[in-house]
């Protein structure tokens, strides 16, 4: 015999049975959780653990040490590691020049060569691997030309022949020695963001030939060349000017090219339901310290990884502008970030009501596998009204709850098999309205 047990209500039953029930999670949950945790903690400030703040600190410290070291050794002709682009780019293209001219660092290198006789060999002043690229150029000093040369020791002034136009009105005359501390050339910039285009101007008025070496392996024989530095770094630009009688003048200047940051981000979730989902913006930008987000709906943020909740559905353009500590910037715009909406509502064209009496029309995807309730397949439905009419136009069912469908009964009686008309009205949760009309066949088994 079965022992008589204490009878309890639904509420008590669930409370007693499930309040402290245990369910064993899948083993993969633990692994996924720990993985997620490790990532979150890396972005979370915690003095006891190596994380992004430490990484940032180390990077800042490393960069500042590198800057201190390089500025400390700059006078000993030490050049930074250079990337040799190999070709001279003359295209100006899409260069953003953001830096104004600053006072140039005056650095003299090379001394006037007093022993030039007839031909001059370009004396390498930079690292050997770079001089391997710079072919030694033989320059013959031509005599008896129109060139007006000032000889050492003379103070005669000469009229400018109007050969050169440049940013500076003040031109210098080849003097054949570094008598003055003044540089013999000017540059449009001394620092800026990569790729950086710089226009150089040779201030010497009259000379036979000149040679520029740009410190990245490139060189030019033009008087006023333009040069593009593609790669970040410090470059020592050297100008040598040659005149008759072995006159030679040289100057150098350090050009600092800062890295260009890159703006990159992703939206999560990638198929979002606006306005319900809170959107997380995952930031993958590099070399940047400042972030300006424009969510496209008139709101902005300066957080590294903001989250945002849109007020209504729409196609928004999300823009991120990043800037580096040097003021270099980059931007990325995602146009129509939320264009693929996944909302729909569809109705079947037949159903087979239960013959066991009215069910009330409650259903869920699992409970109605036998298609006993007429209901839509849907996603993202907000307001909803379903009406069902007989062929004579009699309203026999109405529901405002999408989870209550028609069970095939009217006033407690199972309806006759045949065609019925349905009409649905409402709107999706993004505000987009829908109205649909169709017919459905009531079948009996």
């Amino acid at each position: 015999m079965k022992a008589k047990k204490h009878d309890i209500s639904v509420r008590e039953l669930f409370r007693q049975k499930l309040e402290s029930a245990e369910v064993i999670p899948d083993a993969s949950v633990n692994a996924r959780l720990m993985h997620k945790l490790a990532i979150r903690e890396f972005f979370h400030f915690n003095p006891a653990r190596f994380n992004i703040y430490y990484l940032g600190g180390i990077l800042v410290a490393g960069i500042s040490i590198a800057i201190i070291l390089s500025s400390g050794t700059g006078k000993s002709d030490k050049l930074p590691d250079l990337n040799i682009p190999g070709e001279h780019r003359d295209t100006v293209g899409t260069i953003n020049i953001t830096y104004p001219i600053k006072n140039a660092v005056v650095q003299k290198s090379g001394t006037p060569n007093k022993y030039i006789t007839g031909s001059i060999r370009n004396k390498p002043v930079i690292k050997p691997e770079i001089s391997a690229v710079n072919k030694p150029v033989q320059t013959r000093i031509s005599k008896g030309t129109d060139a007006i040369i000032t000889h050492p020791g003379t103070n005669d002034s000469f009229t400018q022949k109007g050969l050169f136009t440049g940013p500076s009105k003040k031109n210098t005359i080849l003097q054949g020695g570094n008598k003055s501390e003044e540089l013999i050339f000017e540059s449009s910039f001394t620092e800026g963001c990569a790729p950086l285009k710089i226009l150089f101007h040779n201030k010497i008025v009259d000379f036979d030939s000149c040679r520029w070496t740009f410190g990245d392996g490139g060189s030019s024989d033009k008087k006023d060349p333009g040069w593009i530095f593609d790669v970040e770094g410090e470059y020592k630009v050297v100008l040598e000017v040659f005149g008759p009688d072995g006159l030679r003048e040289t100057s150098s200047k350090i050009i600092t090219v800062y890295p260009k940051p890159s703006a990159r981000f992703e939206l999560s979730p990638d198929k979002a339901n606006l306005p319900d989902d809170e959107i997380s913006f995952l930031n993958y930008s590099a070399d940047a310290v400042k972030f300006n987000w424009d969510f496209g709906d008139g709101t902005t943020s300066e957080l590294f990884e903001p989250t945002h909740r849109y007020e209504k559905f729409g196609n928004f353009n999300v823009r991120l502008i990043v800037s580096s500590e040097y003021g270099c910037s980059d931007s990325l715009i995602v146009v129509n970030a939320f264009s693929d909406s996944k909302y729909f509502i569809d109705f079947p064209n037949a159903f087979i009501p239960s013959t066991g009496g009215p069910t009330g029309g409650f259903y869920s995807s699992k409970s109605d596998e036998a298609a006993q309730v007429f209901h839509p397949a849907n996603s993202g439905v907000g307001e909803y009204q379903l009406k069902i009419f007989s062929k004579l136009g009699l309203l026999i069912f109405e529901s405002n709850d999408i989870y209550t469908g028609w069970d095939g009964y009217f006033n407690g009686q199972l309806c006759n098999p045949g065609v019925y008309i349905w009409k649905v009205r409402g709107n999706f949760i993004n505000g987009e309205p829908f109205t649909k009309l169709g017919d459905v066949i009531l079948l009996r088994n």
Partner: protein
Amino acid sequence: MMSDRQIIEGCAKHERKAQQLLYDKYSRYLLGVCLRYASNKAEAEDILQDSFLKIFFNIKNFCGTGSFTGWLRKVAVNTAITHYHKNLKYRYNVDIDEYVSVETGTTSFEEDLFSSEELYKVLNELPAGYRMVFNLYAVEGYKHKEIAEILGIDTNTSKSQYSRAKAVIRNKLEKLGKIKISLSEKREYEVID
């Protein structure tokens, strides 16, 4: 084995070992909570994962006065509520008269007739809105007024949702119970035979 206090202190310092211990000790209990709010186990495990992340990052806010399990459970329930809001697919439109008419029967059930797996299954199959209201009211013991605030619905809606949820559950359990009783009677008969 570390005590709860040691585990909490370890987790507050973000020690991986303490976090792992906390997970090992409470994940089964919390998944039991989460599963009541989900439509399947995978969804429940998602909620569990989010709950643990919240727990690990907010454990320093646990003041230590109340029960620790109570606190953990509250975090899990709140996470489940957030999850529900995120996945909100529809809004309720239930009239008060439906609430009155729907209250049917007072059938009670034998305590041990159903296994917890079966009860979970019944909950999982409920529409999400019914499930939230039923869980919060019946198991968690919130008042309808509180539930209305939590879910952003009307107090009357909460009441009617609860009644309808109960009706659906009762219906399901009755069907299930009939099958089970007939099966068990059959089994007893076989034993006697």
